[in-house]
């Protein structure tokens, strides 16, 4: 009975605690975001091809801590970047300044793109112009002959096999066109092609039959009609657009968003990054802020094991850290270790006597687990004297009223729900 009440009360407590701690954490998150912004523009001196934000090297970690300190001291991102440039030179910037030799890096790709586009346009124009002088290949008389053959007039018996096949193909084409299987454009194009071939074949046969020594007609392979050139142009433009689009989106989508984060973030999976567990990298950090926010995120995910690890790590670095102690207390209370929880809250309150989560949790332990409602009420009154959100105030006031209604002797104050 007690545990049921206790755990449901604890969930409410955790929710409240998150709300109470929200403003401070919001500020921390903002600072962290600005730090990452600066760090992601700096090249890590150890690993060369990673930014300071992404690198797990010791130097990059210390650089991130330095950036955080400088941001806290009120330095602007520009000033911090300038600081790093004054130490490591412009080498440290991932995007080189558009000055001096660095200008080349900015201009060359654009120049190359312009040249490539110009070249492609020239080639396309040459292509498109070619068919204009082409159709002179076939002899009009031979064409007439072919058309007559297709229509079924004229002597088919004298034809060579090649010519017969071509005439057959032309008939099939016409049939397909009538049956609606071929569009008018395709039909016209194909018909022209085969008619010309057939005409050429006829002319060749004619000449061979006459056994004349005259040179065969310049059989320049049927030049592609202009329609084909445009098809190529469409393909080329399409490929170019595809390259640009994938270049743009891939570089945006695939990069490390945070320590140990996914390289695609929520871009492909649809899972928001905040919902993804931080890896062991965050937990092995020695930065109190990083550890605290990792613990926080773990609580939001209800991954209390990881949360406990994170807060314990903070307390290894700084045994008196108030926020970590408060959270540890709540997690201990949840696990039923009331005395240790109380000790943790007291430790938090010695460093910071008005820490809302600690006050809230201490009251909760006293009231729910230890059956000391008067003391709980006193602690909560301290909390009510602070500036807290209206909703939280109502919640605490209700609990105070509930606790006052209970006689102090009852060791299990909670009624079953």
């Amino acid at each position, binding site marked *: 009975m007690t545990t049921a009440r206790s755990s449901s009360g604890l969930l409410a407590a955790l929710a409240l605690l998150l709300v109470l701690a929200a403003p401070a954490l919001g500020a921390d998150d903002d600072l962290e975001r600005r730090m990452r912004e600066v760090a992601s523009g700096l090249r890590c*001196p*150890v690993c*060369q091809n990673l930014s300071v934000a992404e690198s797990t*090297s*010791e*130097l990059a970690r*210390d*650089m991130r*801590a*330095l950036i955080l300190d400088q941001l806290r001291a009120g330095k602007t991102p520009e000033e911090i970047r300038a600081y790093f*440039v*004054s*130490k*490591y*030179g412009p*080498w*440290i910037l991932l995007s080189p300044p558009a000055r001096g030799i660095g200008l080349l890096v900015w201009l060359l790709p654009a120049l190359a793109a312009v040249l490539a586009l110009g070249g492609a346009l020239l080639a396309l124009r040459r292509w498109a112009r070619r068919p204009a002088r082409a159709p002179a290949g076939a002899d009009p008389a031979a064409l007439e002959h072919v058309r007559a053959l297709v229509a079924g007039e004229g002597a088919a018996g004298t034809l060579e096999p090649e010519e017969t096949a071509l005439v057959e193909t032309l008939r099939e084409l016409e049939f397909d066109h009538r049956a609606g299987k071929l569009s008018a454009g395709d039909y016209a194009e194909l018909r022209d092609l085969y008619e010309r071939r057939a005409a050429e074949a006829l002319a060749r046969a004619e000449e061979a039959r006459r056994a004349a020594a005259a040179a065969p007609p310049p059989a320049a392979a049927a030049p592609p009609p202009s329609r084909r050139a445009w098809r190529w142009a469409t393909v080329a433009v399409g490929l170019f657009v595809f390259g640009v689009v994938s270049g743009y989106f891939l570089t945006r989508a695939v990069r490390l968003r945070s320590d140990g984060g996914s390289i695609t973030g929520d871009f492909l999976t649809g899972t928001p990054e905040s919902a993804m567990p931080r890896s062991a990298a965050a937990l092995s950090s020695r930065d109190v802020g990083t550890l605290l926010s990792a613990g926080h995120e773990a609580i939001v995910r209800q991954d209390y094991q990881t949360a406990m690890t994170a807060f314990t790590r903070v307390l290894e670095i700084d045994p008196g850290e108030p926020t970590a102690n408060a959270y540890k207390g709540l997690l201990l209370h949840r696990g039923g270790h009331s005395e240790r929880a109380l000790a943790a809250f007291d430790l938090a309150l010695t460093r910071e006597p008005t820490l809302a989560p600690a006050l809230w949790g201490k009251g909760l332990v006293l009231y729910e687990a230890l059956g000391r409602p008067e003391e709980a009420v006193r602690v909560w009154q301290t909390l009510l004297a602070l500036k807290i959100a209206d909703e939280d105030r109502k919640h605490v006031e209700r609990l105070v009223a509930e606790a006052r209604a209970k006689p102090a002797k009852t060791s299990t104050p909670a009624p079953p729900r």
Partner: protein
Amino acid sequence: MAWRRLVLVFLVGVPLVAVLAYGFTRDPREIPSPLIGRPAPPFSIELMDGRPVSLADLRGKVVFLNFWASWCPPCRAEARDLEAAWRQHRGEDVVFLGVNIQDTETGARGFLREFDITYANGIDARNRIAIDYGVWGIPETFFIDRTGRITYKHVGALGTGTIHAKLAEAREGVASNREGKGDYRSVQ
């Protein structure tokens, strides 16, 4: 027609290959320092024996500032030369100062004992001094003249010859144009 195409290929190909070949001759890890000839970034550090020292206190003396770690082989290679140079120059207006970075205290103390190092050393636990000096490879040594200006920087192991020469230059306040380079290890 054919020779024109050949000339075109050469015009494009030769510079391209030349640029690539030049790239291969360079050390991609090298970060040219903008600090030579500039005032040395101020710092203070707690020495191994607990005494604090700050760079500002050393104004008027030539400072030999060496970043090192006990795990780095080139640091071991130069350690005896550094100590020999210090014993030769101690008593003059020269201060040798070692800054241990990216190391454990036991490792650092063991190193100092092993090479019987008698000049001052301190630990820069958070790499703040190292970042301030733009350190990227160790050992890294800075020569600072009497006015607090960096006259020379050397990445990698130093020999006694270079140490004496560069100390003499720093005494005169002569800044080198280029930094020196030897066998080094990238920082972690």
